[in-house]
């Protein structure tokens, strides 16, 4: 009886170990191109919404660089804020930005007097509203490429093109309307911080001796 119990426990332990490894492995595989992947992400460390005081504005532009595909999908999400609805759909704006376009994202409390869906000035396809509850909220912003493999190039007439966030340019402010003042936001991982990958820099955007550094930090 004791031997049977030990054997059962031993086999169960082996099964659990193998099962947990399988779970860990699958999670890691998913994570390679999942939400934690740095090559899919751009972020801003701070955003805030205070009813009757301030809101957050973000502008995202597609500067139509040589290395950019003409359409790039973006998922922009505010985190650590209570949104309306307070779920994944409520806290994110998902959109496709075309070459040369600029999209606006307002993170604002749901009871704001002018920035609302019913106002035609904020109802166009390039304007996206993320509503928070009518209480002071603060958190951070995370943008993610819709493309799950942002380092995979699409060759177009001999030039490798990418649908990743380092081809886009982001700018934003925490705005205080009463005084038209506020604070500029910081974005990490967009074109400003980008480094074009080696295959591109060694071909179409290669350095020119004594003249350019080739494609390096920033767009140049």
């Amino acid at each position, binding site marked *: 009886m004791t031997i049977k119990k030990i054997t059962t426990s031993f086999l169960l332990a082996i099964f659990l170990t193998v099962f947990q490894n399988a779970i860990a492995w699958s999670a890691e595989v998913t994570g390679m191109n999942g939400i934690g992947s740095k090559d899919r992400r751009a972020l801003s460390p701070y955003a805030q919404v205070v009813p009757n005081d301030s809101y957050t504005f973000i502008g995202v532009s597609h500067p139509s660089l040589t290395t950019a595909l003409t359409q790039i999908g973006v998922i922009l999400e505010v985190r650590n804020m209570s949104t309306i609805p307070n779920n994944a759909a409520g806290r994110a704006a998902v959109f496709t930005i075309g070459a040369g376009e600029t999209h606006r994202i307002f993170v604002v409390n749901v009871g704001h007097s002018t920035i609302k869906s019913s106002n035609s000035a904020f109802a166009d396809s390039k304007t996206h509203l993320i509503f928070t509850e009518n209480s002071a909220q603060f958190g951070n912003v995370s943008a993610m490429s819709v493309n799950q493999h942002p380092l995979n190039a699409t060759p177009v007439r001999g030039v490798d093109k990418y649908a990743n966030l380092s081809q886009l*340019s982001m700018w934003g*402010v925490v705005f205080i309307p009463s005084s038209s003042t506020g604070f500029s936001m910081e974005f990490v991982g967009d074109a*400003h911080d980008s480094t074009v990958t080696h295959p591109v820099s060694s071909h179409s955007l290669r350095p020119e001796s004594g003249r350019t550094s080739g494609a390096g930090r*920033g767009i*140049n």
Partner: protein
Amino acid sequence: MKTGCLSKLFSFIRFFIICLLVIISLTHEAYADIDPHDNRHLVIAPYWQSDSTSYSFIAVTHPSLSDMASQIGLTINVTQSDLSAFATNGEALSFTISAGATERVFIVRTGHSIINPTIIPSGHFIVGPTSYKYGNITVRNVAAFPYNRTGNPAGWPSDGDGWRDITMLSFFGGIIFDHNTTGFAMEFIGDTQDSTTTFSWNQSATSGVN
């Protein structure tokens, strides 16, 4: 004898033509036009706006660094969210900036009481509708061949010879609210701020300040 001379003459002409073609092809390579969308030749700003209460302001400075041509031409394309030009005349703004100079550019609505060419004659203006407009900015070289060095040959005393490359210029800008003259700094990518040491056998700094 005569046939031999002609043969030599033809050979010489053939050789001459081949040499000429080689020189032409090499020259053509050296003067290859740049791609206007090439990352290496652009300066961009992600956001500007103009409406009845605000405008955008840009300052461009020629820092007069070594290897910069004493005059550099630039074209500023102010693109709206619908991809059209902001300027009422539909045109981009082009001007030349000289060594050490700072030029001011105003992206402003029609009929602004203070920000206009009469009151600020030294400014450059991109004037558009009075309604709220926004978009992004792309700055390009006027020079089709910005890497062709101007001025004296290498080794001569410098008299402003260098490259007519806008990525060696310095940009600053703001979105200004009229009623209290406050606003936000704009961001520029690709100017001297983002420059890196150039690729070269001796790592000489020729593009940007670094």
